Each structure stands twice: as C-alpha cells, then as structure tokens.
C-alpha cells in the first residue's frame, strides 16, 4: 500500500482529517513528528491544516525551521510529491518551496464555509484523478489565505502553468475580487492553489481532505487526495494508477 506521510506539528489540527482522507483514498497514512527529520520512507507527504506552532507572527513561519521541514525540503528536491493544505500551504510558501505569500484575508476575519474551486489543469500530479474540470465544493477555514505575489511573479506563474486551482462560482466562472463571496479571502486572480516549477510540490487553501465522504456533504475533494496517492504510488513503484471513477454523484 502507498504510504503517505502526514506531518504533525504541535498545532496541526486537520491531521485528523488528512489521515481520514488518505484512508478513504486507499493509502496508508504515516504520522511524521515535527521534531524528527526521519521521513520513514514515505512515498508522498501531506502538510495538514492547523496552526503549526500557534501561527503567531505569520502563519507557517516558525514551522519552516523545524527538523521535519528540512527533510521535507530534501524530499521535494528529490522529486517527491508534497501537498500542503491550508496551514501546510502557508508553511510551503514560507519555506519558499512554493511561490507567493498568504496574507490576512481582506475581510480581516477568519472565514469558514463551503466554497468551490476548479482545477486549471488535470495533468498535474495533484489533479490527475479529478474526473472533470468542474467546480469542486469543499470547505475553507482560515484567517490568512489571501494569495499574493507581485504582478510579474503572477504572470510568470501563470505562464508556467503554476496556478493549480482558482475559486469559482458554481457555474464554473472564475470568482472576482474581494467583493465576490466566491473568493473567500480576496486572493489575487482568485488563486486557491499553486504548484512549483517542477510540478511536484503543491499547496491550496481549501480543504479537500475534509470533503471525501458524502455523509459530510461532499466528496469533491477526493479527486485531489487520490491524485496525490496515485502520483506517489507511481513514483515509488512505477505503478500505473488504477483508474477509478470518483465521486459517484
């Protein structure tokens, strides 16, 4: 079975959700303690949501210096797949493993509700198992999720296919700026998730891992979790991914 690490910082709290989602997606979750640089030979890594070290100062900043993050950076350098969700995304930008920064929500309020995102492309390691380019419903829950980079950096990112997800309306049209409820934090260009130039590290603010079971309202997030699992499996064992139709709607 594919083994996916879930990094546990002392203030992680969606680790529970990530572990649950990986199980639903058919992987074996392996909890990785922040004080240890030993990745226990996992095939892929999730940096879960939460408040890594309390997220004082700026979200994610302190986590960047932890022993486990040194190991995660090395793992990513070697081509390993790393997915940061919410706080995990913040940690990856602070660690410069992903471009840009996550500012306080423009509303200055924590925002927690269901939103919709759409994958810009289905050929990335983190979107390959998504069934179609359609709005995916899942929750957001964060206070610092406004994606920011300067205009040149954004253009470069877009040109390189680095924008992975955008906030959208339920009809699939891209969300507007901060006045648009569909963009919950005022992210520039409605960017909800990005990937690095090599394509093996990705982060997003919404919570696909909390949206993997219909009993909780939506399983639209399963495609993202399963993409990571498939990509990690393929890289580790040369497996061709099992083609599964997800999210029977």
């Amino acid at each position: 079975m594919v083994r996916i690490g879930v990094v546990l910082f002392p203030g992680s709290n969606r680790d529970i959700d990530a572990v649950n989602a990986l199980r639903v997606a058919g992987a074996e979750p392996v909890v990785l303690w922040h004080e240890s640089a030993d990745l226990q030979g996992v095939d892929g890594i999730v940096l879960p949501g939460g408040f890594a070290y309390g997220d004082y100062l700026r979200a994610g900043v302190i986590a960047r210096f932890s022993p486990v993050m040194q190991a995660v950076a090395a793992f990513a350098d070697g081509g390993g797949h790393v997915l940061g969700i919410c706080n995990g995304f913040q940690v990856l930008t602070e660690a410069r493993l992903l471009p840009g920064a996550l500012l306080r929500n423009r509303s200055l309020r924590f925002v927690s509700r269901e939103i919709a995102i759409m994958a810009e492309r289905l050929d990335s390691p983190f979107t390959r198992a998504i069934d179609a380019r359609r709005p995916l419903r899942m929750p957001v829950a964060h206070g610092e999720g406004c994606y920011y980079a300067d205009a040149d950096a954004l253009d470069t990112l877009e040109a390189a296919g680095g924008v992975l997800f955008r906030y959208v309306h339920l009809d699939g049209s891209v969300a507007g700026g901060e006045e648009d409820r569909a963009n919950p934090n005022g992210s520039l260009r409605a960017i909800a998730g990005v990937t690095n130039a090599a394509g093996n590290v990705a982060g997003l603010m919404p919570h696909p891992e909390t949206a993997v079971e219909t009993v909780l309202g939506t399983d639209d997030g399963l495609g993202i979790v399963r993409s990571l699992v498939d990509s990690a499996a393929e890289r580790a064992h040369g497996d061709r991914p099992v083609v599964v139709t997800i999210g029977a709607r």
Partner: protein
Amino acid sequence: MSTATAFRYAVNVTPKNGILDPQGRAVEGSLPHLGVTGVSAIRVGRRVELTVDAPSEAAARTLVERLAGELLSNPLIETFAIELLGELSAATSPAGDGVPA
C-alpha cells in the same frame, strides 16, 4: 489651510508587563530550531504608522494620543508609546490603501 502641516507618527503597542504574550512565547520557543541562543524576553506587539494634518505638533500629538488609547490599543492588556517620525512639508493623503506618501 493656512499654516497646517502634516506629521508622521508611529504608535508602538506592546502587551502590558505581566500580561501573557503567547506570540512572544511562541517566537522564543522557535529559536532553538534556528540554532539561536542568547535571545530572550521577546514581546510581540503592533506598530501603526500614520500621518496627521494639524496646525501644530502639539495638536497632532493630542489626536494621536486619543487614537492610540481608544482605537489602536486595548488599555486593559496593552500599553502604547508614540514616536514622531517626521514633519511633512505638505499634507499628503494618498487615497485608498493607506500607502505612505
């Protein structure tokens, strides 16, 4: 408008002594990860910079003091100090986002 000028201030807001400062504590706790020793007594507060149009420094300071006490700090748990950063020749009030002139 006559002789009105503009003054730029900083209001430094810090947690009162004796009040728990979880931010300072968290930053302190992270130092070993950076291999840093010998740093202590970290307090994390806020710094607000603002420009005030007023006929005199005294008038401007009175207003800043009021703002600092009523709006920018919470007197129950924070203290503030006011710093004059400079005097501007003309009042400059950039629109919208509060970007300093």
